[in-house]
């Protein structure tokens, strides 16, 4: 590794193992210092290629540092700081290690200049995030974790297959724009693996499934890294791919539709991750300078406000134990600070002027407008209305206002812990600063920015859109009451479809098993084994047994002779001694 360049991801991954050795206050300091150090490294890093290794004749690049990777790395490490502050009270080292490893491997993906390094960190990310689901240690979480792992293992294998194919075709592992091999099998496999991590439907059902089951603090980490690192690699490798424009636009609407039906607070927010990532995927697909800037800026803003929203829902879950909207209500009396901070996140995601979403999301929508994509423009604008409808109106209404359910009245809840509120306040501050001073973010985007978010037309039409979305919400409020149901998504295929498959094919499989596999087993394994066994038995009976019997018999004969010799009569002993003496004398005479 080049002297003077430290990989911030490795700082987190290796540094995490120090935590179990520390206790009390020192440990909590270390929990903050580690991600802060990573952030510091990212902020002071100089662009260029660092950490190049030569392994097996290939050049691996651990540190490709340029504007695109730096802005993602900065927000990832900033997010790790916020996540650790939020998790400061958790007395479970394994969760901290998993969280920091997860963040560190996301940084690894961001700085990876070649596909092999990318793959290694990609898989590490999948494993670390699975642990964050399992660590809730409830049967439903364990099951969801296994499903999550299953999906990501499949995605990882597709990625590996694509990388190997790409390598054998081009002879290079370097990761850059993939458009040269567009349409090929390697290109498609890598793209599908990336789309799976970006939760693009129909490959996205793992996201609400797992994020709603993760630990309260783990879910906050999960909102940031997997999907946004996928957006990053899409920007790197697949910018300008037309397919992404449409997938992104559909995705933005898809998340909104499911959010209408959703009853679990964190699942609702998870569907809005899918919706928001749709804007980024769409921006990557449009591929113009403005669109790439928009996708990057929106990823940056999104990580912060989505973490804030998950912290809010997590705080409610933490203090009341409630996760379903139909069981909540009336919490504004007991958790006003959580409500206030949550609303900052809700305004940011809804792109209310002066909040971060307003200055980032509109770049992607404008890029769709500039390239004259009417349908995409309308779909993205519709999804904006849907975002405000759910995250800004429905969720806070049923969680904090609305009629308190019996359960909510019973567990009135209390204000979230101080460290949770502090993390939320920091994230809220970031949302507001970016919203008011967009230049802070724009300065670090990959392309030069001449976009002005605060135009008269933009502000008034956004306010109109949001205001009348609110009107529509209150008009149709009766129909929006959350219902205790779950919604079918493509996870049906591996949750129910696989079981149905087994039921349907159980009998043919059993027949195949007994008919074909059983016969093979009979001839290849059972018969020879039995033959060898009977040979061994015969050997045992003939040789080993008779040898033992022979030894026994001769011992018995000898004992019988000796028994006669040891009769206890003194005259016999004297006779024997005399005979022995005579024999010795005879022997001595003979030898002479």
């Amino acid at each position, binding site marked *: 590794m080049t002297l003077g360049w430290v990989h911030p991801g490795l700082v987190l991954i290796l540094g995490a193992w120090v935590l179990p050795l520390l206790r009390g206050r020192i440990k909590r300091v270390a929990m903050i210092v580690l991600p802060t150090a990573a952030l510091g490294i990212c902020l002071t890093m100089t662009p260029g290629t660092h950490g190049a290794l030569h392994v097996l004749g290939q050049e691996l690049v651990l540190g490709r540092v340029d504007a695109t990777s730096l802005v993602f790395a900065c927000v990832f490490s900033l997010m790790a700081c916020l996540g650790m502050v939020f998790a400061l009270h958790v007395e479970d080292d394994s969760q901290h290690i998993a969280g920091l490893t997860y963040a560190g491997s996301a940084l690894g993906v961001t700085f990876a200049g070649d596909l092999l390094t990318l793959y290694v960190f990609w898989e590490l990310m999948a494993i670390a995030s699975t642990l964050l689901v399992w660590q809730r240690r409830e049967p439903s979480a364990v099951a969801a974790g296994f499903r999550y792992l299953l999906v990501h293992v499949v995605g990882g294998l597709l990625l590996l297959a694509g990388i190997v194919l790409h390598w054998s075709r081009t002879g290079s592992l370097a990761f850059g724009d993939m458009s040269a091999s567009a349409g090929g099998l390697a290109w498609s496999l890598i793209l599908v693996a990336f789309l799976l991590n970006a939760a693009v439907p129909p490959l996205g059902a793992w996201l609400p499934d797992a994020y709603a089951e993760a630990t309260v603090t783990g879910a906050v980490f999960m909102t940031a890294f997997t999907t946004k690192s996928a957006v990053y690699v899409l920007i790197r490798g697949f910018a300008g791919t037309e397919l992404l424009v449409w997938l992104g636009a559909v995705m933005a609407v898809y998340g909104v539709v499911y959010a209408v039906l959703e009853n679990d607070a964190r699942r609702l927010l998870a569907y809005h991750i899918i919706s928001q990532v749709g804007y980024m995927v769409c921006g990557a697909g449009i591929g113009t300078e403005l669109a790439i800037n928009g996708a990057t800026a929106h990823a940056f803003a999104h990580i912060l406000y989505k973490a804030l929203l998950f912290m809010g829902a997590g705080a409610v879950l933490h203090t009341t134990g409630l996760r379903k909207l139909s069981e909540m209500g009336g919490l504004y009396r007991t958790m006003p600070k959580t409500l206030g901070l949550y609303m900052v996140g809700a305004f940011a995601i809804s792109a209310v002027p002066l909040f971060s979403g307003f200055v980032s999301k509109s770049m992607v929508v404008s890029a769709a407008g500039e390239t004259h994509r009417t349908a995409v423009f309308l779909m993205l604008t519709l999804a904006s209305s849907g975002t405000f409808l759910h995250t800004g109106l429905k969720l806070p209404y049923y969680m904090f206002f609305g009629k308190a359910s019996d359960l909510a009245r019973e567990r009135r809840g209390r204000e979230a812990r101080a460290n949770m509120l502090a993390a939320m306040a920091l994230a809220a501050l970031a949302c507001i600063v970016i919203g008011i001073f967009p230049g802070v973010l724009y300065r670090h985007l990959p392309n030069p920015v001449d976009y002005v978010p605060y135009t008269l037309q933009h502000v*008034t039409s956004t306010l109109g859109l949001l*205001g009348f979305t609110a009107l*529509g919400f209150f008009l149709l409020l009766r129909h929006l009451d959350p219902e205790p149901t779950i919604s079918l998504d493509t996870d049906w295929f591996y949750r129910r479809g696989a079981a149905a498959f087994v039921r349907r094919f159980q009998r043919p499989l059993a027949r195949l098993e007994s008919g074909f596999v059983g016969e093979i087993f009979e001839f290849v394994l059972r018969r020879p084994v039995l033959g060898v066994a009977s040979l061994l038995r015969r050997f045992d009976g003939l040789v080993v047994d008779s040898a033992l019997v022979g030894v026994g018999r001769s011992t018995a004969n000898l004992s019988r002779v000796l028994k006669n010799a040891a009769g206890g009569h003194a005259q016999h002993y004297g006779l024997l001694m005399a005979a022995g003496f005579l024999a010795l004398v005879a022997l001595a005479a003979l030898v002479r």
Partner: protein
Amino acid sequence: MSFLERWLEDPVRFARLQRWSFVGLVVVVVAEIALPLVFRGGHAHFSFEDFPAWGSIYGLVSCIAIIVVSKLIGKAWLMRREDHYDS
């Protein structure tokens, strides 16, 4: 926060809050129609964006469409009992 309780739990104040919300909506619509006439310029990408009060109309239509269409799809197809996967 007693502030929230004051405004939400007192019917008189709540009615006042509602009235002001409606006034706000009217102001937004008027601003959206009038301001572009006063300050010419700004750049719309599509001609439909110049339709008077485009944002407000599209917001209301979107909101209602999302709720109605999603609920229809949900009732007809997607929504299942919570123990759907447990059986």
